[in-house]
């Protein structure tokens, strides 16, 4: 399993592996927002938590279709299904690799981009905390979506259609935490709910992902 | 025709839109059903003798 993690990480960091692409996308989305809503600082400050969360979510979504598709094409996935390690574990590792190469950089970049959007000072800590607590859920749910669409040609759009509704609870609690934090309100309740969702999805979703992957590859 | 007062447009449009959508659904369903019957009949005629009766 460690070998699988190391392999996925190496592949991601290699040129053309997609690492950094999500970050660049995140940056561009955040830069485009003031162009679309106007440069007014107070407005930007008000929408900053939501924009940063949505941007991170979309950036996460962007890299999902490569999560399993490349392994499907070169046959690695068939090996994994037949491998002595449980498929659930292998998919958890792949989700972890996705989070380390996509989610974690987004978490680290978000406060920097928060400056661009005039995020209130009180919001930085809550934003980082909420992203840290929420992005693992995005990766795990995304793995399920990728497993659903793995054998489908041009499954990218379908993947978005399937995964985005599943992201709703995470987005709501995540953005709510950041927004309340930025407004100086009490934000531990949504943060606790967000953490709960993340823990539950991390624990349960790999089973669903492995099940659909076995069905899809049969 | 009942007196709908100032909300006539809303009520009538709600009924019209809903009934049109429902009728569309029923019509599409029936058309697809007829096409399926025809396809099955064609398939049965074509494969007669080559496949055991199913």
């Amino acid at each position, binding site marked *: 399993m460690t070998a699988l993690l190391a392999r996925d990480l190496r592949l991601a960091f290699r040129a053309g592996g997609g690492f950094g692409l999500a970050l660049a996308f995140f940056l561009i989305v955040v830069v485009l927002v003031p162009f679309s809503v106007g440069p007014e600082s107070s407005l930007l400050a008000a929408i900053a938590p939501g924009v940063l969360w949505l941007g991170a979510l979309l950036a996460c979504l962007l890299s999902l279709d490569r999560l399993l598709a490349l392994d499907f094409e070169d046959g690695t996935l068939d090996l994994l299904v037949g491998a002595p390690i449980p498929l659930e574990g292998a998919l958890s590792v792949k989700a972890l690799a996705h989070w380390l190469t996509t989610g974690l950089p987004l978490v680290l970049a978000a406060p920097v981009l928060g400056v661009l959007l005039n995020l209130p000072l009180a919001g930085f800590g809550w934003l980082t905390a909420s992203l840290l607590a929420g992005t693992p859920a995005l990766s795990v749910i995304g793995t*399920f979506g990728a497993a*659903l*669409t793995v*054998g*489908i040609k041009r*499954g990218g759009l*379908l993947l978005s*259609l*399937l995964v*985005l*509704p*599943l992201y*709703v*609870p995470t987005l*709501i*609690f995540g953005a*709510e935490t950041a927004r*309340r934090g930025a407004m100086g309100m009490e934000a531990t309740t*949504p943060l606790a*709910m967000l953490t709960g*969702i993340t823990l539950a999805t991390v624990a349960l*979703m790999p089973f*669903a992902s492995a*099940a*659909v992957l076995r*069905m*899809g590859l049969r | 025709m*009942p*007196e*709908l*007062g100032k*909300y*006539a447009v*809303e*009520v009538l*449009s*709600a*009924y019209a*839109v*809903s009934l049109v*959508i*429902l009728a569309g*659904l*029923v019509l599409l*369903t*029936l058309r*697809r*059903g007829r096409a*399926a*019957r025809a*396809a*099955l009949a*064609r*398939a*049965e005629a*074509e*494969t007669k003798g*080559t*496949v055991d009766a*199913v």
Partner: protein
Amino acid sequence: MSIWQYANPVKFLALSTRVQPVIWTAAVLCVAVGLLWGFFATPDDARQGATVKIIYLHVPAALMAINAWFMMLVASLIWLIRRHHVSALAAKAAAPVGVVMTLIALITGAIWGQPMWGTWWVWDPRLTSFLILFLFYLGYIALWEAVEDPDTAADLTSVLCLVGSVFAVLSRYAVKFWNQGLHQGTSVPVATGGRSVADVFFYPLVVSMVGFGLLFLALVLYRTGTEIRLRRASALLARAGRES
């Protein structure tokens, strides 16, 4: 004799062909009576005026939108556990009907909301949940369309339906939390709009609800038959192709 004998497609088709005329007649009758009764023979509400008449479309459609998903959930479970093809096909057949019901509920709600709340749309928990339900339906149907092998498609969509149900419920509670957080103190008069209705409005509403339920049943039976025939036709052709 158990209910599972109708998992046999031939028996299912025979039974459904036999009962369909009755169900279709009853459905059309109930919908017509409910809507005509509601439209022509009920008084206007003191507060809502004539817009109260929209309730005879809105509430039954919303009811069936949720029940259709619930039926798909049960059918998906039966498919996953007992591998009855009819069950999977019934779930597939029900999805578009559910979409239409959701759409009607959303549209009539918007038309009612415009004069009553002064806006087509508010991000009220109930409305938002329905919109999310609509998205789930779309994803479910899109997945059916995208997967080529029918049994794999049935498997994948069934799991999506199960997972989607969990997330739909989760979204419902998340949305409630989110909206309270956003609009603290403001109350949107959603659930009060004639829900605790007087008898004059209630009886035609019940007839209409029964009618929509029967209409759903009739449509699903018919569409399931369609799917079975299509499947059998392609199976026949495939087998002939292999043998020749």
